[in-house]
């Protein structure tokens, strides 16, 4: 057996009110692809931040090549041969690719040499990229390539990848895996963080599974089934959602020729989007992040208005109406960003209940607010959706992600929508809460609502939606029934690996 490259020994790190890592130990050998598996909040990010010098452990030790390893800063970690690709990219949109790469290097070469080296590395590893392009104009997959190349230029001994596939199409995932296998064959160790079980089984040699900050198992993922891994990760048997088998009824929501300008300088907007959702139906919209998901939610919720005929509810043109008019007609929505978009962080849950509930729940009259009624509404949400909080007077930001998401979804569902649009309903939510939210959405459909689920989690979409379409640079593919769709077909709908050609042309 080879000597370990990095060993983590009994590391503990506590934050106020939560122990992020408790007595965690594991080892990575050179060339090994090691998975760090766990739910959101299991402590994966904290552990990785310690290895990368962003956080210091309270106790325990790390060893690199047998010697003590305690990087005080990311620079020190990089000098020791650790490189990291972040989940939320550490990129600068207004700067170009070469500048972004230079910022992640200790001693970057002169600009001209750097551009040449970027081209070399990108060709060697099959990651085409033009050094002169502005990062803000790149797709999510291309941005990830910038991060990877930034790492590879430093010849890392250990490459950390934090949830790398959440922004990729299945085809792009394949390409990424080829790159990672090549790196591994050259002796680079890879710490691969994910909660996607099939990927880990396909790629990794070893897995350390975290739950609530503790190591619950270390295993060879290829020898375990996805179900076994899932149960280790979650610690309980997961209920399969109950579809109910409702037969779709009349068309409730009809979208045609919906075109919207980009909301910001690097946005995509929507181009000629068309679909319809029937009573009792769940319509899934997939796609890589940044392809118009936020614009679609905003256009449907009324935050962005469009031509009247572009959106119809039960045949009535509503495209020109604002959010509150649509709410009164029965179109409700739950945006992706919980803190700051779906809810106001510093406001209490009572005030947040009022945020969308005033009209349909009768929480005000002629502009004057009925606080007792708002409080009762907040109480109903908290009770009905198992929101864990000491009380409705507490600020939204004091809730955990999962609890706040249950509050947000519950707030909309309790208003009995005819059409509900949700974006990333279970993003960053623990498995139990995610299951509860999905079930609540399905129940709403069974009661006759039309539901649009926008999500980047393909498993989720396949699990709950009846029909599927993908957003790609603001265009929506023709919808197809979910039943019988293969991952490959879905990947092609999401745009395949098409931007590879674009990048080649750009060179």
């Amino acid at each position, binding site marked *: 057996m080879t000597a370990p490259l990095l060993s983590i020994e009994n590391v503990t790190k506590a934050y106020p009110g939560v122990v992020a890592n408790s007595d965690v130990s594991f080892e990575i050998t050179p060339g090994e692809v090691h998975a760090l598996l766990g739910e959101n909040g299991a402590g994966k990010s904290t552990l990785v931040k310690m290895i990368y010098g*962003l956080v210091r452990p309270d106790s325990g030790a790390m060893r690199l090549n047998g010697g003590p390893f305690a990087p005080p800063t990311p620079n020190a970690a990089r000098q020791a041969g650790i490189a990291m690709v972040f989940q939320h990219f*550490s990129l*600068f*949109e*207004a*700067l170009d690719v070469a500048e972004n790469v230079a*910022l992640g290097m200790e001693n*970057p070469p002169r600009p001209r040499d750097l551009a040449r080296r970027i081209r070399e590395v990108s060709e060697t590893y099959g990651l085409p990229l033009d050094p002169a392009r502005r990062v803000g104009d790149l797709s999510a997959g291309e941005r990830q390539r910038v991060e990877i190349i930034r790492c590879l230029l430093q010849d890392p001994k250990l490459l950390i990848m934090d949830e790398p596939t959440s922004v990729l199409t299945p085809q792009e995932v394949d390409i990424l895996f080829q790159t990672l296998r090549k790196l591994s064959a050259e002796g680079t160790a890879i710490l691969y963080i994910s909660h996607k079980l099939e990927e880990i089984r396909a790629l990794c040699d070893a897995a350390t599974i975290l739950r609530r900050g503790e190591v619950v198992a270390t295993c060879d993922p290829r020898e375990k089934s996805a179900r076994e891994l899932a149960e280790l990760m979650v610690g309980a048997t997961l209920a399969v959602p109950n579809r109910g088998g409702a037969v779709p009824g009349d068309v409730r929501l009809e979208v045609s020729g919906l075109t919207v300008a980009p909301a910001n300088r690097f946005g995509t907007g929507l181009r000629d989007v068309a679909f319809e959702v029937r009573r009792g139906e769940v319509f899934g919209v997939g796609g890589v992040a940044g392809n118009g998901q936020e614009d679609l939610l905003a256009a449907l919720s009324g935050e962005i208005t469009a031509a009247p005929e572009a959106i119809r509810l039960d045949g009535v043109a509503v495209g020109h109406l604002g959010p509150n008019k649509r709410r009164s007609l029965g179109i409700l929505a739950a945006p992706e960003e919980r803190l700051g978009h779906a809810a106001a962080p510093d406001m209490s849950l009572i005030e947040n209940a009022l945020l969308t509930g005033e009209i349909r729940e009768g929480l005000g009259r002629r502009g004057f607010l009925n606080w007792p009624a708002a409080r009762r509404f907040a109480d109903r949400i908290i009770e009905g959706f198992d929101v864990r909080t000491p009380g409705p007077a507490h600020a939204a930001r004091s809730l955990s992600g999962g609890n706040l998401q249950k509050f947000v979804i519950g707030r909309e569902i309790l208003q009995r929508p005819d059409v509900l649009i949700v974006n990333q309903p279970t993003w960053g939510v623990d498995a139990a809460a995610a299951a509860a939210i999905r079930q609540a959405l399905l129940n709403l459909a069974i009661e006759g609502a039309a539901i649009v689920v926008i999500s980047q989690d393909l498993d989720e979409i396949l699990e709950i939606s009846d029909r599927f379409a993908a957003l790609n640079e603001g265009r929506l593919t023709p919808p197809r029934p979910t039943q019988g769709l293969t991952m490959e077909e879905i990947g092609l709908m999401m745009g395949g690996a098409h931007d590879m050609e674009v990048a080649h042309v750009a060179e």
Partner: protein
Amino acid sequence: MDLSSIDPILLIAALIVAATPILLAAIGELVVEKAGVLNLGVEGMMITGAICGFAVAVETQNPALGFIGAALGGAALSLIFGFLTQYLLSNQVATGLALTLFGLGISALIGQAYIGVKPPITADLDIPLLSDVPVIGPILFQHNLMVYLSLGIVAGVWYLLKYTRVGLVLRAVGENHDAAHALGYKVVRIRMLAIAFGGACAGLGGAYLSLIRVPQWTEGMTAGAGWIALAIVVFASWKPWRVLLGAYLFGGITVLQLNLQAAGLKIPVEYLSMSPYLITILVLVIMSADRSRAALNAPAALGRPFHASS
């Protein structure tokens, strides 16, 4: 009215003098904003610089020391802003306003003893040969050192931002402080340095007013120059050479309206005096109306507080 009394050569030379205080303050603020910090206290730092420079110059009878004192005074005041916004995470808009109000007060306090005092004269550089060239000589080569220094600072800032690693890191911090932090850059330290630089430049600009342009000390003598400097940064879309252009354009308007006043134009003096402010507003409107262009160069993290806890 006698427009022929306006000498275009003297006008251009005077334009440069009128523009230099604002140019200095604006180029400093540009660096601050490029680092992602919005310091609305330029007016306060300028006037503090004006009195610090004036006081030091009078006490030492040395204008050069005066300018150094002004830069230190402006920087010291800006560090109050830096401490509050970067370490105590206070609201940048409110803190900038506080800085202006405080600066006006403290400068008036220091300035009590200096009302009516004459400062030592800052000599103009007389570059042999060059300054004797007709037309170009008086326009370009008969100024004091501060004019050339201000041009040097603009060139330096341009070079720094465009070609150096320090400039790249500064822009990165202003673009996305969380990413810069994740890569291991000291966001707060970099911003503090930028803030201090901005304060020093504003201080120099203020001292240029009290030591060269006017030259004497009166309370509130900056009369909105700091705010105009802020507007010029927007006008310039955060580009150094366009700050120069903006400041000189503004200087031109100021000098022209003063000349028109002197020439006895049949517009009341008050309306001529308000024209620089109105034109600044007009320019702001034109720049901001084109949303795509205005947004393109604005640092993305401008004005947002940074806390490394997350």
